């Protein structure tokens, strides 16, 4: 049952939110032992929320557009009084003293939060294998990764544990797991959704977004969580997108661009698999069949995104993660002096990938290397912004694969960080530019696993990404692939 169907049934009094909740909790109970989507299931708190929704309906009040819809929260979203770990030992047992704005907004819309989902520690990874609490398995094939870092949320939606989920996307962490698990995942324009209460990884790149089984459900969730927030100074003022209202507009007359460097054309990045490229081409053909015009666009700096990202993101992370010092919250390892205590706590609390990124970021920012690495990466960001601006003078949206391959086997890429990082090559540019992007399932690969196609739009083009994704969803359902 879709999120919108559940909400309609609960609002009309046809179904009770508590019954909907019980049904989903039973599925989690039965299936999550194998999948490990959740770090924590908050059944009691969820029941209270569901009872409040039912009470509102009984009073004749409208509980909101997501009435009674169970949602999964990535475990880097602060929930007051409920453990929030970032899948890190450094935050194990921590109970935040406040709720993230997305959590507050979802609750106000009638949604019922059922638990906290697994992620790569501090959202650093592309497979959810970097969790201190063990990996999540892909519900489509338990021997494969679900993608990452929002792998737990993607798996929860794919396994039908929850119709909706919240993720965060710093370099592709919503879109890539959505592609791997065969669900819809969307990274909004930077600043469209408040980051208040999202535990920071790389503050100029992080953005919260929705996961769902359908484009319409994802749009409904996006509409609820988007909008300005006085608690996030980077949230865009006077922005009130309504993606749900544009889903049936079609793509007739729309100009679609295919990025040559990310589609197997001349100068293309390495590692894009043939079946993923074939599905992407079929998606572009489907848009053309629906009335869009298609042209190839060159964005040369797209090939530099990976290098720029793996300097900018670790640099910002090394600064953001300085706060885990054993003083105010989280793990403290006792030592005779504060300095030794800081070092001992951080050393014991962080896992290998987090340490690697802190090291990389600290190096990139250190005296003598700042200009060569971090400074250059910021200039590449400007180049990308310029080139994408030029591209969007010629076309309305851009279409690329979401990830270079389908979901890979657990354990296959953990030994060599670079083989993991290349997963993000198609998703990273829109984090560096702040532009929105959505991944929509479009057929399967040679291995039978889902393929995701990505639709990109310029800043504030959030509605447009849903509009185009809606056409792709219909084409995929029509057997176009």
């Amino acid at each position: 049952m879709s999120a919108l169907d559940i909400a309609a049934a609960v609002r009309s009094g046809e179904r009770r939110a508590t019954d909907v909740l019980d049904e989903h909790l039973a599925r989690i109970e039965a299936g999550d032992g194998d999948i490990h989507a959740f770090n924590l299931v908050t059944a009691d708190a969820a029941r209270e929320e569901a009872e409040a929704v039912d009470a509102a309906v009984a009073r004749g009040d409208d509980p909101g557009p997501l009435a009674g819809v169970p949602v999964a929260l990535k475990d880097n979203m602060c929930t007051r009084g409920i453990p929030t770990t970032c899948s890190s030992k450094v935050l194990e047992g921590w109970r935040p003293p406040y709720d993230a704005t997305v959590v507050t907004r979802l609750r106000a819309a009638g949604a019922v939060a059922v638990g906290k989902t697994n992620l790569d520690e501090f959202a650093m990874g592309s497979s959810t294998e970097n969790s201190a609490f063990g990996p999540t398995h892909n519900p489509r094939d338990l021997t494969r990764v679900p993608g990452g870092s929002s792998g737990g949320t993607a798996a929860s939606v794919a396994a039908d544990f929850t119709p909706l989920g919240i993720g965060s996307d710093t370099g592709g962490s919503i879109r890539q797991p959505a592609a791997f698990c065969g669900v819809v995942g969307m990274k909004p324009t930077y600043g469209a959704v408040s980051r208040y209460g999202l535990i920071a990884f790389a503050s100029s790149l992080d953005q919260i977004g929705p996961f769902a089984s359908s484009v319409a459900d994802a749009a409904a969730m996006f509409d609820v969580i988007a909008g300005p927030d006085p608690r996030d100074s980077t949230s865009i003022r006077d922005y009130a997108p309504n993606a749900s209202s544009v889903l049936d507009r079609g793509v007739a007359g729309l100009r679609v661009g295919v990025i040559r460097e990310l589609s197997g054309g001349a100068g293309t990045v390495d590692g894009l698999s043939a079946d993923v490229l074939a599905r992407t081409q079929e998606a572009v053909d489907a848009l053309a069949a629906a009335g869009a015009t298609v042209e190839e666009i060159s964005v040369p700096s797209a090939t530099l995104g990976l290098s720029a990202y793996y300097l900018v993101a670790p640099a910002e992370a090394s600064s953001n993660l300085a706060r885990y010092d054993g003083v105010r919250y989280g793990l403290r390892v006792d030592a005779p002096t504060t300095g030794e205590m800081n070092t001992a706590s951080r050393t014991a609390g962080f896992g290998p990938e987090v340490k690697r990124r802190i090291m990389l970021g600290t190096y990139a920012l250190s005296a003598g290397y700042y200009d060569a690495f971090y400074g250059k990466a910021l200039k590449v960001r400007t180049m990308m912004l310029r080139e994408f601006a030029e591209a969007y003078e010629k076309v309305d949206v851009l279409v690329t694969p979401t990830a270079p391959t389908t979901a890979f086997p657990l354990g296959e890429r953990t030994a060599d960080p670079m083989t993991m990082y290349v997963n993000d090559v198609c998703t990273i540019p829109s984090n560096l530019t702040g532009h929105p992007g959505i991944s929509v399932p479009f057929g399967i690969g040679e291995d039978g696993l889902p393929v995701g196609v990505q639709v990109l739009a310029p800043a504030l083009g959030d509605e447009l990404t849903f509009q185009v994704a809606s056409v792709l969803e219909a084409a995929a359902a029509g057997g176009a692939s």
Partner: protein
Amino acid sequence: MSARITRGDVEHVARLARLELTDEEIELFTGQLGDILEHAADIEALDVGDIAPTSHPLPIVNVFRTDEVVPSLDRDEVLGQAPVAESGQFRVPPVLGEEP
């Protein structure tokens, strides 16, 4: 292109980042960070001329709010999450007498 990162660089950076690495980790990170930075050679080698850097995707300037007193986080709830708190404050081991 800059010289490949050395073991000494890794030890220095670990001190800056307040991480204590084992010999094995130093060895591993020296190799892995070297590989990642080698990949970044494409932008290190780039002639970017006088292009202005972008540290933030949106042209946001200072955001002000009216100077009204609003409730903040509950102090007891915040201190309740501290490893050690005392008299309304965070308690830490001695700071004085440390090497700088």
